[in-house]
């Protein structure tokens, strides 16, 4: 299938119609969806209508934008007016938001055409997309394996060439890890670079929206399209989006690259040897292209996982309180009182993983434990940021594996803590608010793709795209 940039350029020049591009995407979805289950909702008619509007604009001589006619998919936790937004939860099954997320407006403004909403771990809580109330998504490379998560549907849709571009949300690795497991590019931008308005919150201080693509250049144009200040999101950074497309051609000459020792068989255990080998090869490839590569120790990152599994559930426990059966969503039972109804609705509406995290977070915030858990975790976060910032005085970017392992079978990590350990390399960037990108770099066990992660400082997207482009060529 064509890349997003190829489609947009052909549509803008009139050589390909948006309608054809969208029809192709819909056909691919129809053929593979029974096997993969990447989507919760496909909006074929609406997509064709929009595609025709793009074609009319082109015919009328106007430019529909940098993503003209590009079929896209959105993780089903981004609000789309009049289109179901379920978070893959029974509690929101069938809910149609009466408003659009900022990213939806921006993408429509750039000429992109939404074809559907993709599956996820319920409320984005998970690393395998097994926690969806509507059944799991399968890895297009091998349907007996998970696609990763929580944005597994968006990763699979791109990996299976159903769409050239999709979007996920990343709270602890939920874009980068499925990108690695499905062999696509996945970007988590700087916290505040992309508006969260309309993204159903999991953990507000960590959540960021980012793209899945088959090429680094597509990820660059996608980031430039969705980034930028939004007055509806207080935490949105009041600065222009960094220009990253420019950085793609720079090469690696003089780029200072630090390889995180703790994630290369150091203090953190449980990495597959092939994953470590590919990451070393990636470092070598950068060096061969002229980069200065060195190991660097970031001791505090060892504690990222612990801090994350206190902070994220704490914020989630509060963010998910509103699903109470009063104003929207599914009320399960009347009960004899409002409280009864709320308890019945929440008990029946949430899956086990969501309940676990709500309880963990409620506990971490409750009287008597706040200082020991949430308060302490927020200080660990400061430590991690200080450590990163010290490293970025010496390095432009850092390098690590994205995931300790390649795609794994369904049910392989049934124990919650074992599953959580999967996020050990991705979590520190969320805690620090820094950008990071996962690039497919050759294969590991069972010929499955390995993802290499390039990390950068606050608003350092240009540098990570620069390195990512080099890795893409060397892979």
């Amino acid at each position, binding site marked *: 299938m064509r890349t997003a940039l190829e489609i947009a350029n052909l549509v803008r020049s009139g050589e390909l119609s948006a309608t054809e591009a969208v029809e192709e995407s819909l056909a691919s979805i129809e053929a593979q969806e029974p096997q993969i289950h990447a989507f919760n909702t496909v909006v074929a008619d609406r997509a064709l209508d929009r595609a025709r509007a793009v074609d009319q604009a082109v015919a009328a001589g106007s430019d529909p934008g940098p993503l003209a006619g590009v079929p896209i998919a959105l993780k089903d936790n981004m609000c789309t007016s*009049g289109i179901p937004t379920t978070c893959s939860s029974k509690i929101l099954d069938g809910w*149609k938001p*009466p408003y659009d997320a900022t990213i939806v407006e921006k993408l429509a403004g750039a000429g992109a055409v939404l074809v559907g909403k993709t599956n996820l771990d319920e409320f984005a809580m998970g690393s395998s997309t097994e926690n969806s109330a509507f059944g799991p998504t399968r890895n297009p490379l091998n349907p007996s394996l998970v696609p990763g998560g929580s944005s597994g549907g968006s990763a699979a849709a791109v990996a299976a060439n159903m769409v050239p571009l999709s979007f996920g949300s990343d709270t602890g690795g939920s874009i980068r890890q499925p990108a690695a497991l499905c062999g696509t590019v996945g970007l988590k931008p700087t*916290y*505040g670079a992309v508006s969260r308005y309309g993204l159903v919150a999991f953990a507000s201080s960590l959540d960021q929206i980012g793209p899945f693509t088959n090429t680094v250049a597509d990820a660059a144009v996608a980031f430039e399209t969705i980034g930028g200040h939004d007055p509806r999101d*207080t*935490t949105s*950074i*009041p600065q222009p989006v960094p220009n990253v497309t420019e950085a793609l051609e720079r090469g690696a000459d003089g780029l200072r690259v630090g390889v995180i020792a703790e994630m290369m068989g150091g203090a953190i255990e449980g990495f597959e040897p092939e994953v470590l080998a590919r990451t070393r090869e990636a470092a070598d490839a950068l060096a061969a292209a002229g980069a200065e590569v060195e190991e660097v120790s970031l001791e*505090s990152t060892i*504690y990222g*996982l*612990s*801090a994350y*599994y206190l902070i994220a559930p704490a914020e989630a*426990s509060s963010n998910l309180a509103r699903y*109470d059966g*009063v*104003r929207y969503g*599914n009320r399960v039972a009347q*009960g004899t*009182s*409002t*409280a*009864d109804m*709320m*308890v*019945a609705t*929440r*008990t029946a509406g*949430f899956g*086990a993983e969501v*309940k*676990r995290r*709500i*309880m*963990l977070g*409620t*506990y971490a915030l*409750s009287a008597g*434990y706040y200082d*020991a*858990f949430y*308060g*302490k*975790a*927020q*200080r660990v*976060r*400061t*430590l991690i*940021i*200080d450590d990163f910032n010290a490293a970025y005085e010496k390095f432009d970017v850092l390098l690590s594996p994205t995931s300790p392992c390649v795609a794994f079978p369904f049910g392989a990590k049934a124990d*919650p*803590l074992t599953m*959580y350990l999967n996020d050990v390399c991705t979590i520190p960037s969320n*805690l*620090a*608010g820094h950008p990071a990108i996962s690039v497919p770099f050759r294969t590991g066990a069972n010929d499955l793709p390995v993802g290499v992660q390039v990390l950068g400082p*606050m608003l350092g997207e240009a540098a990570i795209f620069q390195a990512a482009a080099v890795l893409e060529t060397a892979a």
Partner: protein
Amino acid sequence: MAEALSREEVARVAELAMLRLTDEELETFTPQLAAVLEHAEDVEALDVHGLEPTQHPYPLVNVFRADVVEGFDNRDAALAMGPEVEDDLFRVPPAHGEEP
């Protein structure tokens, strides 16, 4: 930091979170949550004294909106999605207890 999490504590937390757990669920969840909390105890090894907690990775302050009314043209859709609506009001079963 914490002693092993007890079933009673998990039950109390579920109640605070408006969730009802069966005995079997209590049995499963308690050791699972205890394991995560136990893992979290490794942060004890860290000296974080004198460190400010990080609330936001990108420090912003005084982010305001002007006091301007913005209409919402999709009110009917917002009301239509209520599980039970009567005369444009959201209907709920009777409240017991009082507002805090």
